[in-house]
């Protein structure tokens, strides 16, 4: 038996013809309902996946996209409804059943073992041949898959050595290796650069041409527009399924939130005021004593948003950590309103009005088993505002969480829900609410819109701009260049721990910023 897969180049003959009657169905979901204590996450959802299509699930945070895919992947057992795979009604009790049926899934949060190599991560647990790992056949198969799909990855690299974006490829390779026919991708591009995301789409189209079908969950409209069809979920119900070529971003947004979403941003022209944050010659070292920040200098004034562009892993995270007091710098000084704060703790920075939105929300920003209410006061639990005498003032905290849940439209049964049960976007809103509430003066926002639906992004934009108007200085890092071009007054580009250029978004082009992100310095200097 040959392990080598036969891979056909995409040809018009086997490429899918949209909308034709005879297109076979890879998957059909009928009337699927899934409830969690008090929440109906999916409410009679009907959904069809044709062979060879990229089908987007699109919807607000908490609309039930992840729940639907978890049911299709056997993580959850639906309370009602039917899942039909290639014409056969099936009942799945665990992901193992799903994998047997040729269904694969790439999760938003990776499940790779960092201490294993790429190869080991892919074959462990998938071997059918007993307990001795025979990697020769697997290696061959993976090599040919990489060649066929144009995936460049070193099979013997350890996963911890790979950048987050690269880890995504391991997950995809694993799905290919398992000969998956239906692949579910839950926000796969949240950590990819625009360039990588374009490559991912090229590969997905190739996979579809070979007869695979893909369910894609994403909040990025530009990516939705590259799919074949879109199913819009709202409050657990599938409200519409449309051909992508017949629709527009505006229509999708309207279907999703049930109202018009304005994509344009109204940025007032306020003149920058006094300098709030002044950083000069900052340097920091990583775990292996490698330089992660090198001679970083920047300044932000009142009424100003400084954008940070850059491919993930070029020092942005470390910069935010140093500025929020979590990590100490080796060299350089940080001045906040003239005061030297280079050696202050996170506590002291918070007390000086510095808010920090970390990029790894569940690890750094939230305590998973704690309720929404408790997470809203994380870091401020000793503040007199939330205390009465010796005790936490539950009444006040509950009132606060009521207000915040309404203001940020945090979708949850009540404020007692542990945040680990919230949908990704809603968890992010809890952090935003907390940091907006408790900061004054300086806001450090690292990827604040990651995983948010466009309705909420609109709201976050408005909030950031309002803070700017109120006189905040804001440091905003985002992998979404559109965020930066929309909001920032200046954009600094980071590459390998250095700031390689600062541009004016009013005059610069996306291409220019892209060049800088790839490491080309600006000739004229800063």
């Amino acid at each position, binding site marked *: 038996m040959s392990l080598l897969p036969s891979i056909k180049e995409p040809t018009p003959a086997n490429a899918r013809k949209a909308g034709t009657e005879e297109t076979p169905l890879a998957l059909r979901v009928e009337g699927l309902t899934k409830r969690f204590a008090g929440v109906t996450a999916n409410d009679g959802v009907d959904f069809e996946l044709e062979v060879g299509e990229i089908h987007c699930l699109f919807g607000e945070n908490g609309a039930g996209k992840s729940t639907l895919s978890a049911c299709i992947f056997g993580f959850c057992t639906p309370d009602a409804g039917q899942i039909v795979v290639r014409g056969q009604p*099936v009942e799945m009790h665990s992901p193992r059943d799903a994998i047997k049926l040729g269904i694969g899934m790439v999760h938003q949060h990776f499940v790779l073992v960092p201490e294993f190599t790429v190869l080991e991560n892919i074959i462990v647990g998938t071997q059918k041949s007993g307990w001795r790992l025979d990697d020769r056949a697997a290696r061959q198969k993976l090599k040919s898959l990489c060649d066929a799909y144009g995936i460049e990855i070193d099979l013997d690299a350890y996963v911890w050595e790979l950048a987050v974006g690269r880890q995504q490829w391991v997950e995809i390779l694993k799905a290919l290796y398992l000969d998956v026919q239906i692949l579910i991708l839950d926000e796969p591009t949240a950590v990819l650069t625009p360039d990588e995301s374009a490559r991912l789409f090229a590969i997905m189209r190739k996979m579809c041409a070979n007869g695979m079908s893909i369910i894609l969950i994403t909040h990025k409209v530009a990516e939705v527009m590259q799919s074949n069809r879109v199913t819009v979920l709202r409050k657990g119900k599938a409200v519409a399924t449309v051909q992508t070529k017949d629709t527009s971003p505006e229509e999708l947004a309207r279907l999703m939130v049930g109202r018009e979403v304005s994509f344009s941003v109204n940025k007032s022209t306020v003149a920058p005021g006094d300098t709030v944050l002044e950083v000069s010659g900052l340097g920091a070292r990583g775990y292996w004593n490698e330089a992660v920040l090198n001679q970083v200098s920047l300044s932000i004034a009142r009424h100003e948003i400084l954008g940070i562009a850059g491919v993930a892993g070029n020092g942005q995270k470390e910069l935010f950590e140093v500025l929020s007091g979590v990590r100490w710098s080796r060299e350089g000084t940080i001045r906040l309103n003239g005061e030297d704060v280079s050696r202050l703790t996170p506590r002291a920075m918070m007390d000086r009005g510095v808010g920090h939105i970390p990029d790894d929300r569940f690890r750094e920003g939230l305590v998973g088993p704690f309720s929404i209410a408790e997470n809203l006061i994380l870091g401020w639990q000793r503040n007199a505002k939330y205390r009465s005498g010796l005790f936490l003032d539950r009444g006040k905290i509950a009132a606060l969480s009521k207000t915040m849940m309404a203001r940020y439209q945090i979708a949850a049964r009540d404020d007692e829900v542990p945040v680990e049960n919230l949908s990704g976007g809603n968890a992010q809103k809890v952090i935003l609410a907390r940091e907006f509430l408790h900061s004054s003066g300086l806001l450090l926002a690292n990827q604040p819109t990651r995983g948010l639906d466009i309705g909420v992004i609109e709201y976050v934009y408005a909030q950031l701009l309002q803070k700017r108007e109120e006189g905040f200085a804001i440091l905003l890092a985002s992998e979404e260049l559109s965020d930066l071009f929309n909001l920032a007054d200046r954009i600094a580009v980071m590459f390998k721990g250095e700031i390689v250029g600062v541009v004016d978004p009013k005059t610069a082009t996306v291409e220019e910023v892209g060049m800088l992100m790839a490491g080309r310095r600006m000739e004229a200097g800063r």
Partner: protein
Amino acid sequence: MIRIERRIDANPWWTAGTLVAALAAGMLASALIVATAGADPFEAFRTLFFGAFGSQKAVMTTLIKSTPLILTGLATVIAFRAQIWSIGQEGQVFAGAMAGYLGSQILAGLPPLLFFPGVILFGVAGGLLLGGACAILKTRFGVNEIVSTVMTNYLAIYLLSYLLAGGPWAEIGDGASYQQSVPLPAAEQLPLLFGTKLHIGVLLPFVAAICCAVMLDRTALGYEIKALGTNPVALGHKGTNIARTIIAVMCISGGLAALAGVIELYGVGHRLKADNLVGLGYAGIIVGMIGGLRPLGTVLAGLLFGGLASGAVSMRVVSDIPASLVPAMQGIILLFVLCASVMARYKIVRGTAS
């Protein structure tokens, strides 16, 4: 067909059910052991039960026996909830007793209203310092708390051994028995509750459990302890001093365990002697675990274990069943309860397989 599936949200009834089932299964397994030892399991359990709860006297013995177990159990709860794996309760019980005894020598002659609070404070300080020392080793030098607390257990146990075997506190006289101090004078023994055999120290575990419950549930420190146990990274990033929280946790835990030692000295043993203290700390780890790391659960588990201990005494008296059955039973019950806590995360569903 019946299948076992992972549960997404916890169901308190199911959790309680698994716990009861575990206790029953533990009893059943113990019965098997009794039977293999050639005794009548029915008889054994009857004696055990009557010895624990069968009479007023039995209930009192149970209360007295459970007092130190609940306290060391609470010490376990506070530490383990913060995911600090302190197993220093044993040494801290010893430290509490020693420091409490030292207190009696300094405070002797004071009126009871000052003397008893005074010696209790002495004792608590002993355990607090021992726990705090391990905390500082952990936060300053990165010494794993399991290692350091085991070491301090030896330290405390051998220090007592030294003090009592010919050391300054040994009882010296004609009929000198080794390894104990002179008895405390009657005035220095904890007073009894309204004419019963119960010393007033039996109230302390209940007060302590309520304080712990309120602290964990309602105060900023409790909030920090629980957050430290679930996501220390986020807690630290959001400005809480992790080292200080660890030190607070280990001091409180050490103090609670030490309280068990002083109460045992002034309420039960009335003289400093290792035999009275040994095992109380280790049993407390089991009690805290069986209590689900919750203060009120720990009170129940402590009463259960106190009952087993008091029943064991009567078993030794009235039947020929070895009393060492009881520690075996305690171990078996722990195993089953730990299994139950895993079971609680699953559910049994009826349905057809694909």
